[in-house]
């Protein structure tokens, strides 16, 4: 057997598996999306139907809020951990990155332990202010959950970017009379720009598409993945669920393509 045909043979199993279990199903999904009573116009329903549009806006707002909060938190903590050496630093880094592979359902349960009916936050607040704070089963609980699994991912990217920063630039700015805030604002943060875009897009796409956390917290939280799920299982509205998931897939794919054009690597949108 020639070298060339061996190489082709090596690719054959991948071609079969990918076609059968990914390309074909994706094509089927796109076709199903147009098989509803409205035909191709079913794809526009995500924008024109008020209920779907509200859900889309909700999901985008939640993902944007998650991204902004995660970036702010991860930048402060990541910069601190990368710039200082102190005893216990390695343990702290390990603590900040270990939830990386937790599935969304587990994160949902942890949010319930934190902010649910028997949760820690409710316990503390009822002792301090005589009022039990319970918000796990709402969009705020979902926000807390997305924060939980976005922080480890983003912190790793930020730490790697801070490590590559040229300390000389900051020293130069300082020697020219810039104060600590000016150095951060005009030198450090702009240099971290690409890392912000890359990790922010990943956090955004993950928060848009995640399903497990919302599923654990409550089935009536109005976000796109839950809407798709209820349309499919409860309403048996196959065409709508297909059209909505194609729309959702396009959004998350576009966000990650954007991230990759900035950083050259991609990370899973799991959860």
């Amino acid at each position, binding site marked *: 057997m020639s070298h060339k045909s061996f190489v082709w043979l090596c690719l054959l199993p991948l071609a079969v598996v990918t076609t059968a279990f990914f390309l074909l199903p994706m094509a089927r999904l796109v076709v199903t999306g147009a098989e509803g009573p409205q035909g191709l116009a079913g794809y526009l329903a995500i924008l024109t139907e008020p209920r779907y549009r509200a859900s889309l806006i909700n999901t985008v707002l939640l993902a944007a809020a998650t991204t902004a909060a995660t970036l702010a938190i991860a930048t402060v903590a990541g910069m601190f951990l990368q710039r200082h050496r102190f005893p216990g630093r390695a343990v702290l880094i390990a603590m900040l990155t270990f939830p990386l592979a937790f599935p969304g359902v587990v994160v949902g349960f942890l949010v319930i332990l934190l902010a649910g009916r028997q949760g820690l936050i409710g316990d503390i607040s009822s002792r301090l202010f005589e009022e039990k704070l319970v918000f796990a089963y709402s969009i705020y609980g979902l926000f807390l959950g997305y924060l939980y699994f976005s922080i480890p991912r983003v912190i790793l990217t930020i730490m790697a970017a801070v490590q590559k920063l040229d300390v000389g630039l900051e020293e130069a700015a300082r020697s020219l009379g810039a104060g600590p805030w000016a150095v951060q604002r005009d030198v450090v943060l702009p240099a971290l720009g690409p890392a912000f875009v890359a990790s922010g897009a990943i956090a955004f796409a993950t928060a*848009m598409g995640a399903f497990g956390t919302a599923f654990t917290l409550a089935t009536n939280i109005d976000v796109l993945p839950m809407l*798709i799920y209820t349309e499919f299982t409860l309403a048996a509205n196959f065409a709508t669920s297909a059209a909505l998931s194609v729309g959702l897939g396009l959004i998350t794919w576009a966000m990650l393509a954007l991230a990759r054009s900035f950083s050259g690597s991609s990370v899973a949108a799991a959860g």
Partner: protein
Amino acid sequence: MRYRLIFTGQLLFTLMVAAFLVVPAMLSISAGVTVNYFRGISSGVTLQWVFQVWDLYAGTILLSFVIAAATLAVTLVVGVPSAYALHVRGGRLSRVVEEIITLPLAIPGLAIALGLLFTYQGFGGFRRSWLFILSGHVIFTMPFMVRSVMAVFGSVDIKTLDEGAASLGASPWRRFRDVIVPNAAPGILAGSLMVVTLSLGEFNLTWMLHTPLTKTLPIGLADSYASMRLEVASAYTLVFFVMIIPLLIAMQMFADREQRR
């Protein structure tokens, strides 16, 4: 003085973030071995919930291991040769193929699962068996195996080794077995750890693809969160942590060792 103040402030903030991540996991672990969570750990420590989880959900734990092992086997057999072919061939076609197999990471599992359901709903036997879940896991984890192996090929000069062995008269298959695979070992190991970890914890696809007879561990977890008392749900989560944390630590140690090279 000013420096100390900034340092302390940042340290406190970072500690708070770490507490946010660690405290809920600790709560879950402690609840799983507490007699009565409502009354607190003073009510006593017990393993009864863990045993109850085993009675109720042993099947899900075993099925998760079976599916993780099968996913690993398929990604190895399919992924390693294709990583080699994609690297050797190079060019535009390889980039397109790599792009396509990476797409499942960018598309929510829910969408992929719906596509699989619409495509294979007519194939009852396949639809009802655990192989249906396997197909989803393979698609979702394949890019990690292929990319991890390709990353190693990028750092060792595999083409020269391959050509050297060819000039000595080795057949393509022998070269693959005796030269390519041993050289790719670090990538294969890193990819395998990732594949098993992801498969054990996969929920989004699995929830849509499972049947009452093919429940995996994360499906059982969701089930226990919805219907069991908090102690049982926590004990089940504890079982999951015990399975997944050694894998995470192994992955971390492996990454550190690679970085030091």
